[in-house]
């Protein structure tokens, strides 16, 4: 028998005032996964999140942690459970009477056996990872909305929690910062293996980092599954909701969105099968962005990706399709191109990359090395799209090495 899910909501009902906000929610959250909760405004996403952490108690139903009901736990057990959690509030909920440093230090300073020097070190680490410089002694009221968001993230992550609940962590941030926050969540999940629950409107970006997606509608979970599942959900309501939010262009890089790219891929595949029109795909990736993140901050890797995307666009023809394939991957679809021509396309990009100072994108002058890799595959009429992409991933090899001295 497999282990029970880390968190399980069973028939949770909550009425606030005259409003039945949650009407029998059933949801499982598994250890080490990022679960995205999507849904219309006012559909009870935040209320659901507050039930998970225990700020609200359900009227009916129960919430289980590793198979045990929270309501049946003893006070010390509840306390131990609470210490595993962190919560990023939608409106940041920063302490307005404390400075940025004091805000971020508070969850550590209020714990028993806190060592001031250690706290200072961890606070400073988190602030620099989130690109927060020269704001240490400012008060939240003196910061911009985006900065407050990042301070709130720093405060939630400084305790290195097991479970982090994010209530719209990227609302109000610009596209680069949005991507930086997403890449940070994803990077931290890989490094520390935390379990994340993210309430988000960022479709499709959130699908790049989430392993599971749940859509809440009318107080119930309308859909639960992987990001791939939800994009092909049979329920037209679910699909309409997703397509309504999705913009045809990726806001950060300006290249096509994931779903547009998928459409073009399917079209080219059928052209190949019917009319024998060849095409190739190039899957380009920034390798180990976390190395850049750790040295130069999460903004750096995203700025770099944006610059890289600019180069790809400049070198491609009008008929080519560049689209965001994953958080750090760009796919280029080259119609009427064989593998040899696709390779020369890659060489052309690497040439222009060498001529330009890609790293001007980074303001903080630090030594950072990075590599870009590409996988080139020509489509065959007898293979499916999945096989084609899998082949491209397998083919990936470093085609450009950059270094900032």
């Amino acid at each position, binding site marked *: 028998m497999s282990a029970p899910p880390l968190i399980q909501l069973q028939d949770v009902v909550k009425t606030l005032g005259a409003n039945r906000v949650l009407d029998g929610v059933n949801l499982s959250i598994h250890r080490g996964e990022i679960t995205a909760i999507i849904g219309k405004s006012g559909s009870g996403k935040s209320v659901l999140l507050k039930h998970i952490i225990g*700020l609200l108690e359900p009227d009916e139903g129960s919430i289980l942690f590793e198979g045990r009901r929270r309501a049946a736990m003893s006070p010390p057990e509840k306390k131990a459970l609470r210490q595993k959690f962190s919560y990023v509030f939608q409106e940041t909920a*920063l302490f*307005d009477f404390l400075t940025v440093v004091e805000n971020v230090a508070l969850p550590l300073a209020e714990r028993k056996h806190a060592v001031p020097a250690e706290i200072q070190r961890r606070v400073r680490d988190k602030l620099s990872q989130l690109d927060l410089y020269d704001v240490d002694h400012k008060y939240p009221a003196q910061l911009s909305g985006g900065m407050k968001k990042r301070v709130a993230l720093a405060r939630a992550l400084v305790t290195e929690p097991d479970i982090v609940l994010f209530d719209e962590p990227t609302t109000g941030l610009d596209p680069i910062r949005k991507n930086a926050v997403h890449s940070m969540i994803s990077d931290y999940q890989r490094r520390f293996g935390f379990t994340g629950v993210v309430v988000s409107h960022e479709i499709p970006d959130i699908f790049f980092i989430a392993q599971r997606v749940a859509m809440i509608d009318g107080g119930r979970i309308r859909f639960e599954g992987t990001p791939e599942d939800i994009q092909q959900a049979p329920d037209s309501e679910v699909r309409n909701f997703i397509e309504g939010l999705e913009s045809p262009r990726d806001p950060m890089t300006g290249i096509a969105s994931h779903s547009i790219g998928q459409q073009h891929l399917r079209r080219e595949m059928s052209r190949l099968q019917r009319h024998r029109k060849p095409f190739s795909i190039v899957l380009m990736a920034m390798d180990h962005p976390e190395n850049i993140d750790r040295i130069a901050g999460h903004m750096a890797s995203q700025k770099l990706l944006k610059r890289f995307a600019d180069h790809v666009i400049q070198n491609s023809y009008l008929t080519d399709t560049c689209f965001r394939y994953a958080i750090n991957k760009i796919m280029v679809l080259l119609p009427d191109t064989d593998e040899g021509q696709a390779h020369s396309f890659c060489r052309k990009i690497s040439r222009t990359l060498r001529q330009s100072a890609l790293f001007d994108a980074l303001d903080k002058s630090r030594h950072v090395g990075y590599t870009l890799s590409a996988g080139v595959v020509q489509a065959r009429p007898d293979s499916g799209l999945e096989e084609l992409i899998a082949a491209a991933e397998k083919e990936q090899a470093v085609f450009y090495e950059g270094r900032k001295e």
Partner: protein
Amino acid sequence: MFSLVTLKTPVAAIGREVLGFTRNLGRLFLFFARGFLLIFQPPIQFDKIRQQIFFIGMKSVFVICLTAAFTGMVLGLQGYYALVKYGSTAALGSAVALSLVREMGPVLTAVMVIARAGSAMAAEIGIMRISEQIDALKTMDVNPLRYLISPRIAAALVCFPLLTAIFDVVGLFGGYLSGSALLGVNPAFYFSRAQSSVETGDIIGGFIKALVFAVVTVTICCYQGYYTHTRAEFGAKGVSISTTSAVVISCVLVLLTDYVLTTFLL
């Protein structure tokens, strides 16, 4: 049509009100009891208590001195014109000193601190509530009662008696200013009568009042702020109503408990 229901409705309404009132009273008491006990939970929050003492105590000193001086001066004036009819102006010292130490000192100190610090407490905690800062404390496993309320209770218990003492002394000199310096009562009589008539019991009684007022004031003001979100009004409106009711309820309760305490202490 007359029915039993119409007869029962007003009774039920009274019952609901009484039950609601009793429930609130119970919540208020538990709020104070928890906040008070958490003062002693190690590690004791000396730094936060110190900050609150500065805010409640130190920053009130000027206002307290000003009020005390004028209260003493008015007592001197009124006392003089009342006593001069009986030719016993020498008793002015005891009249001023006793009314200050027993009544005016503790009560007016409490009222001034409510106006200055109590309203600020209710507003500050109310804003923390509506901006989810109190929820944020809970998510960090920080007990909001211990973090926000306990230091304020501790600080009030320290500050109220001290401020009352300052009030008494400044008021006494205020009475001297109007009674002796302006109206010509012999200063030696004034001070010796003041000294001889005030007994240790009076001073202790005054301090007991100050301590009780500290508890009443802080509990009401923090409670009003802390439960801002349970009001029918939301946001800034809710905070403004919380602040108003904090000031009104604690002032009324201070005067009410003053009467009760006086009957026991006399």
